[in-house]
């Protein structure tokens, strides 16, 4: 093996093996405790609450990001022909992606604050009550943290889909139109086959990202109110750096790794089939 491979192996393997070792030990005494830390997770209601919150977050964020990103890509692809307008859209869509998640969280805090926040002010200006306590209720707090993810990463979906749409052969589109295909048929029968493998790729990236979301949530809600937005990563942080129970945190982090890897494997298999076709 070449030295870079060895180095990379050491950098990845050592922390992973140390984490595995920690997960099977009592971090205070160092004694081997078998699967105790894993079994503990199954008797921990806070763990299941965080798992449930994570599932809601991942589902909502992925559905909105992929649905909206794809719809916008189609809209721009079909309606905007001007080169400079398209460039302007690219630039605008890159801004959220390069914004640090912590900064995005701080901005969102200013938007969602009920008294002097921008959102309620806009709602009042539009004639609404504008008195929603966005970060004080479980459902609206969940909406707020998902919205930040959507704002930051829907543009990624847009850019990938938009690039994919450029690869659809124009003659196939024209032939379909001549045959009387409508917008939906055009998408389903001509454009979608060109996008499906890209969408799977997007799904893999966004799933792993949303599953371990952390920064903006910590800034925006801190996992609250109560534990309603305490996602797995936030719960894991609490166990590791508030409770200092490094063994239990290691076991939970292995769980996250296993779930993310399994999802990656399943989606990767689909992707492989798509590419082969």
């Amino acid at each position, binding site marked *: 093996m070449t030295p870079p491979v060895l180095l990379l192996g050491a950098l990845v393997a050592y922390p992973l093996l140390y984490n595995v070792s920690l997960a099977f030990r009592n971090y*205070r005494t160092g004694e081997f405790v078998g699967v105790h830390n894993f079994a503990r997770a199954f008797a921990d209601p806070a763990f299941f609450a965080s798992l449930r919150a994570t599932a809601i977050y991942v589902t909502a964020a992925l559905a909105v990001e992929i649905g909206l990103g794809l719809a916008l890509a189609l809209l721009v692809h079909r309606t905007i022909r001007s080169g400079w307008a398209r460039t302007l859209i690219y630039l605008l869509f890159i801004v959220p992606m390069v914004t640090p998640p912590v900064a995005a969280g701080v901005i969102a*805090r200013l938007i969602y*604050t*009920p*008294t002097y926040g921008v959102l309620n002010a806009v709602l009042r200006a539009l004639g609404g009550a504008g*008195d929603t*306590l*966005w*970060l*004080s*209720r*479980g459902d609206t707090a969940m909406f707020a943290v998902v919205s930040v993810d959507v704002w930051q990463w829907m543009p990624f979906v847009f850019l990938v889909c938009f690039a994919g749409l450029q690869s659809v052969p124009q003659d196939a589109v024209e032939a379909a139109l001549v045959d009387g295909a409508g917008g939906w048929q055009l998408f389903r029968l001509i454009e979608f086959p060109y996008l499906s493998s890209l969408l799977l790729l997007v799904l893999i990236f966004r799933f792993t990202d949303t599953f371990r979301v952390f920064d903006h949530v910590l800034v925006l*809600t*801190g*996992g*609250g*109110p*109560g*534990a*309603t937005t*305490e996602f797995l990563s936030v719960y894991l942080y*609490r166990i590791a*750096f*508030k*409770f*200092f*129970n490094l063994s239990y945190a290691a076991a939970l982090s292995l769980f996250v790794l296993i779930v993310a890897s399994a999802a990656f494997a399943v989606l990767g298999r689909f992707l492989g089939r798509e590419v082969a076709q």
Partner: protein
Amino acid sequence: MRRRWWIWPVIAVLLVTSGALAAPGLPAKPAKLTMAVVAGGETKGLKAILPLWEKEMGVKIDLVEFPYPTLYEKLVTAFQANAPTFDLLIADDPWMPKFGSEGWLVPLDSTFGYRRDADIFPVVYDLGSWPPPRGPIPPGEAGKPRRLYAITLVGNVEFFMYRKDLVSAPRTWDDVVANARKVHDPRKPLYGFVIRGAKGNPVISEFTPVLLSFGARIFDNNWRVVLNSKQAVDALTFFAKTLKQYAPPGVENYDAAERAREVATGRAAQGFIWPAEITDIVENPSVSKVVGKMGYTLAPAGPGGKHAPLMGNWLLAIPKGSRNQRWAYEFILWATSARIQQPYALGGGIPFRKSVLMNAEMNKKFPFFRAMADSLNAPAEWRPRTQEWFAVEAILGTHVNAALAGLETPEEAITKAAREIESHMKEAGYYR
């Protein structure tokens, strides 16, 4: 006897070249002292006095600044390796149980013969002592000789603020409610009381003085959880229902910045406050509309008449790994001396000496000093002296926040928190 006339020039030359003339009994001057500090307003006063120290003593001090959580990690890492990375540090007082029980700091009394000063509030010495002089002592620590490991540099303590142009100084929580009722008018908007209610440390800093003033406790003297009590439920009901009805909407997510903003913009009439928020925001004419309109007083008393201001001092200490311990001690003596506390305070520092906090001239300039003195002088209430405090705070902070948001009733929140804290303490080996 033959006179050794040549000895005096030789001694003089040796002294001059060794640079040891700084003070009698001190080792040679080090090139510099390295000090780990938290990044933020807490070090404003320290930065103001450092040029004085360097001018007087001729020893440079390098400040290495870290954000709050990083500082703790860096210190623990350096201590575990017994590395000579830092000669001095400032530590948040809840870190003392960890640092004290691990024996990572140099005792100031038994090593250097530090003598207590009547000008310093006893609570300052209590905070820097290990094992703790009051309350429960962690398992295995009770038999250790009590030593003084640290002395306060930043006399942080939580007290109460109110709009003195609108209401009178509250002595009790009943007074606070009466004041709130008098001025509360969301249409203006003017809110009677602002709560720092965000999950975790923010809401616990706010709720603990209420909880303790109602006579509740989290632990008994054997670390058994006694939180699940009528007093605790009453305190949380008062906090999450009575006080909240006078608070701005959305306080479940308010941290210190939001609280200070509500007060500084004239939208809130009463609330808790820490000194740094006063100098940085509330009494800062460039950002505040209420300069000169605020009064400051001791944390209000509960039904039994008990005031429970929360301590949050930053303490100066010397790590055992330091190679310049004697000079580091000299700096501690100098920085905490009555002579230096005045320029320290004038430079934006938060002092802790009686002579400075009770000085009439200083009180004109810093109208909150008297409230600070009263708070430091009140029967000391501190966060339980255990390494597990951060876990306790995270558990209690989740449920108190849930109660504030209406997701749990006060009874549910207290019951769940007590159960989870007890389970955590068991796991941490405090009892079976």
